[in-house]
């Protein structure tokens, strides 16, 4: 048995958590960006319709 067995077990479990948390965070950042873009376009359309 590899002497670093327990160390690699933690790497394995940590990598799963890191991927899950990392992907979750990228989703939240992306959500904020597209919400900003949506708001910007809505106000642009309203401005142009008023003119």
């Amino acid at each position, binding site marked *: 048995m590899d002497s670093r*067995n327990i160390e690699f*077990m933690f790497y*394995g*479990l940590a990598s799963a958590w890191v991927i899950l948390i990392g*992907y979750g965070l990228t*989703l939240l950042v*992306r*959500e904020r960006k597209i919400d900003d873009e949506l708001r910007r376009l809505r106000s642009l359309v309203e401005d142009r319709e008023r003119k």
Partner: protein
Amino acid sequence: MRKTVITVMAVLGIALLLRNLHVILLELPDDAAQGPIYRIMFFHIPSWFTAGIALSLSLAASVMYLIKKDLRWDGMAVATTEVAVAFLTIGLVTGSIWGRVAWGIWWTWDARLTSAFVCWLLYVGYLVLRTAIDEPTQRARISAVLQIFAFADLPIVWYSIEWFRTQHPAPVLRGAGSIEGPMKAAVYANWPALMLIGAVFVMLRLRQESVKREIDSLRRTVHAL
């Protein structure tokens, strides 16, 4: 309402994962042959199961798009595929770390690992391809066709350990030599936890796809005005 549902599901999923982590690390004994490293299996196997479910939904959504030509089905396909890729990545990375200890190598080109890697490449390719096509209906049609072809790799991944002689272990949840008792229960307990987290991701992605369609429509309006 939508935000409340997502928050409740996320909290429930994380709570389940933490409870399972407690069981995995503190309640289950070390494996007699492998020592503590076998615990990676409790994330490795459910991640593949979750990815399999997500990809099946993605296939169904792609077929539905080709039948109905409704871009909401395309949104469902891309949302589930992207979440599946995250879980496929967990499966590949955790498997590789386990292999480093169990086999003494990070990777080997046996039938299971190779077909799994090809599966990951196909679906990453699907996501990259989508960024290269601007026209929404063309993007949806080509993506749906690619999705159907890509899914053909999934049964090969699943059955490769039965069809071929592989370095990868034989099925551990069924057949001779399968795990039993609390170890098997821990694998099945972590699956719904990951499914809940996956469902939260899909719901977030679905909304993003819906907003993107609205953004596309607003851009066309801005050009027209």
